[in-house]
C-alpha cells in the first residue's frame, strides 16, 4: 500500500527546509504531517508510514501524534470538510440549527461523508470566532461567519462549482464606527 503515497524530490526538499527550523528533527513532525495532509488529503496509516520512513522516526510515534490532534484526518474525508462549531457562543447563537440544517440538506449526519465523496460534516469544538457565531470552517482553511440558511445554501453551491470561500475580514466594531485614517 505504502507505494501509493510517495514524496518526490521537491517534497523532500520542502521537508528538509521544515526540519531546518528546529534544533531536533522530531519537532518537525506536526508541520511535516500538515505537508503530507495537504498533498494526500489525509494522514491514514499509509501516509503515517511514509512520514515515519521519510523522517526516520518510529511509526508508532507518528501514529500517536496523528490520533492526538483532531485536524489530522485518520481516514480519507470528503473533498470539502465542513466543520460546524457548536461550542458555547455558537451553541447559544444557533450553531446546532445550522448543523442540523446542513445534515438535512446533504442527507448525512455529523461525522459522515456524502456517498459521492464531495462533503463531510463534523460538529467541532470552539474555533475562536465566537463573536461571529454561528460559523464553520471549510477543510481546515477559511472561516465562514454569521451563518444563515441562505449563506449555507450559497456556500454549498459555490463549493460544488469549485469556488472556494474568500477570507472574511471581521472588522473591529470600533474601526467601523471610528475614523479609518
Amino acid at each position, binding site marked *: 500500500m505504502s507505494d501509493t503515497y510517495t514524496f518526490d524530490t521537491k517534497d523532500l526538499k520542502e521537508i528538509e527546509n521544515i526540519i531546518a527550523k528546529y534544533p531536533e528533527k*522530531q519537532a518537525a513532525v506536526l508541520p511535516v504531517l500538515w505537508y503530507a495532509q495537504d498533498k494526500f488529503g489525509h494522514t491514514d496509516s499509509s501516509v503515517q508510514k511514509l512520514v515515519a520512513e521519510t523522517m526516520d522516526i518510529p511509526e508508532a510515534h507518528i501514529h*500517536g501524534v496523528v490520533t*492526538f490532534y483532531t485536524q489530522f484526518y485518520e481516514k480519507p474525508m470528503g473533498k470539502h470538510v465542513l466543520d460546524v462549531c457548536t*461550542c*458555547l457562543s455558537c451553541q*447559544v447563537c444557533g450553531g446546532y440549527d445550522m448543523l442540523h440544517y446542513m445534515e438535512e440538506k446533504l442527507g448525512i449526519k455529523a461525522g459522515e461523508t456524502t456517498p459521492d465523496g464531495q462533503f463531510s460534516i463534523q460538529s467541532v469544538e470552539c474555533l475562536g470566532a465566537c463573536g461571529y457565531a454561528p460559523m464553520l470552517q471549510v477543510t481546515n482553511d477559511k472561516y465562514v461567519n454569521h451563518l444563515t440558511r441562505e449563506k449555507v445554501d450559497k456556500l454549498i453551491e459555490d463549493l460544488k462549482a469549485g469556488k472556494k470561500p474568500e477570507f472574511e475580514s471581521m472588522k473591529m466594531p470600533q474601526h467601523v464606527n471610528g475614523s479609518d485614517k
Partner: protein
Amino acid sequence: MSNDWKSYQPLLIPAIRDLHEISVYEKNDGYQALKSILSDRKKWSPENVIEEVKDANIRGRGGAGFNAGLKWSFMPEPDGKPRYLACNGDESEPGTFKDRKIFEYNPHLFIEGAIIAAYAMQVDAIYVYIRGEYRPWVHKLQQAIDQAYEKNYLGKNIQGSDFSVEMYTHMGAGAYICGEESSLMESLEGKRGYPRVKPPFPAQRGLWGRPTTINNIETLANVPMVIKNGASWFKTIGPDTHPGPVLYGISGHVNRPGVYEYPAGMNIMTLINEVTGGIRNGKKLKALIPGGSSTPPLRADMLDGVTMDADSLREVGSMMGTAGMVVLDEDTDMVDLIWRISVFYHHESCGQCTPCREGTGWLEKTLHKINSGDGEIRDLDLLLAICNRMEGRTICALADAAAWPVRYSIDRFRDEFEKKCKKTVYAVA
C-alpha cells in the same frame, strides 16, 4: 473612568489602514521601541528592559494574569547554549477570539514585542505556536515575519547591532490542551500534547531541555508601548493592580458582538449595555461568562459595579481569564449550556491524569442525564463530588477548568438544575 472609554484611542489595534504592512507600521512609529533599545544599550541593558516591563505590571493576557516582566526575570544567566521564547497563540478557550485580531491587523506590534522580549531574556529563537484552525492567520503572521526579516528587524545582527534572533511560526493541529504552556512545548517538540510535571519550570527546563519563557500574544503586543512611553505611563491606563489596554472579545446575545479594545477594568454593565449595544431582541440579561469557558459564570444580579480586572472579578467569585466574555440572555438554558461545556472538556482532556480523564467523562454523562430529564436531585451532589475529586489533583489545570463551571453553575443556578431533575421521594429510615 466611568465615561473615559468613549474618548479612548486604541493602542494595540488602532484604526489605521493597512497597518499590517511594515511600511505603514514604520510610518506610525513602528519598531521605534526596538531601535531605541539597540541604539542606547547602556540605558537599555537586558536587565533594565526586564525591570521596566516588570514595573509596568503587564498581567499575562492568556488567562493566568501573571506579571510578564517578573516571568522574564526567572530566566537563568546565559551560559552560551540556546534559550527560547515561545509565543502562545493557541487561543482555544471557548469564548476567546482576540489574538487573531493582532495577527490580522497589527502583527508587527506583536513581532516587535517578541523581539524586545528575546533581547531582554537573551534568547536565540522565537517560536510562535498558533492553533491549526487559524491557518489563514498563520499565513498573515508569516508574511509580516518575512517583511521584518527583509528589513533586518529579525535575523543576524539586527539593525547593525550584535543582537541576533530568529522567529518561526509553528502550527498546531487541533488540541485545546496545547494552550497550556508545558503541553505547548511538547507539541512544539513534535509530540502528543501531554502537559509536563512542574517543577522543573520552563525557565529551568523548557523547549529541548533549555531555558524557555512562554508568553501570550497580546501580552507581548503591550511591550513596545511600555518601552516607548515608560512603565509609569502604562500604569495610568486602567486599574492600578491590572494596568494597560485589554482586548475584550464579546460574544453571545449582544447586539454588536466582536473584539473591542479598552483599558482593563471596564465596568461590565457598560460593556454590555453601551459598548455592544445591549442584549439583542430587547431581552434581559441572565448571566455572563467573563473570561472564557473555564471562568465561573455570574448571574446578572451579581454584576452590579463589577469591573473587568482580576481583583474585582475575584471578589465576586469569578476570574478575568482571557477577557472572552460570553453574554447570555434570559432564554438561555443553563443546564444545556453547562452540559455542552462539559462535552468540550471531555473531548479536550489529554487523558494523562485519571481524575481528569474519568472525571470529565462523568461530568458529561451526568449532565447529559439531567439535561435529558432522567436526572435526580442526588445527581447534583454526585456532580459536586466528582468536582471535588478533580480539582487540584492533576498535572495541569484542565481538570479545574472543567470542574469550575459545573460547580459554580449548580451553586448559582441551582433552581434550573433542580427543575430538570425528576421529583424522587426517598423514604426516611
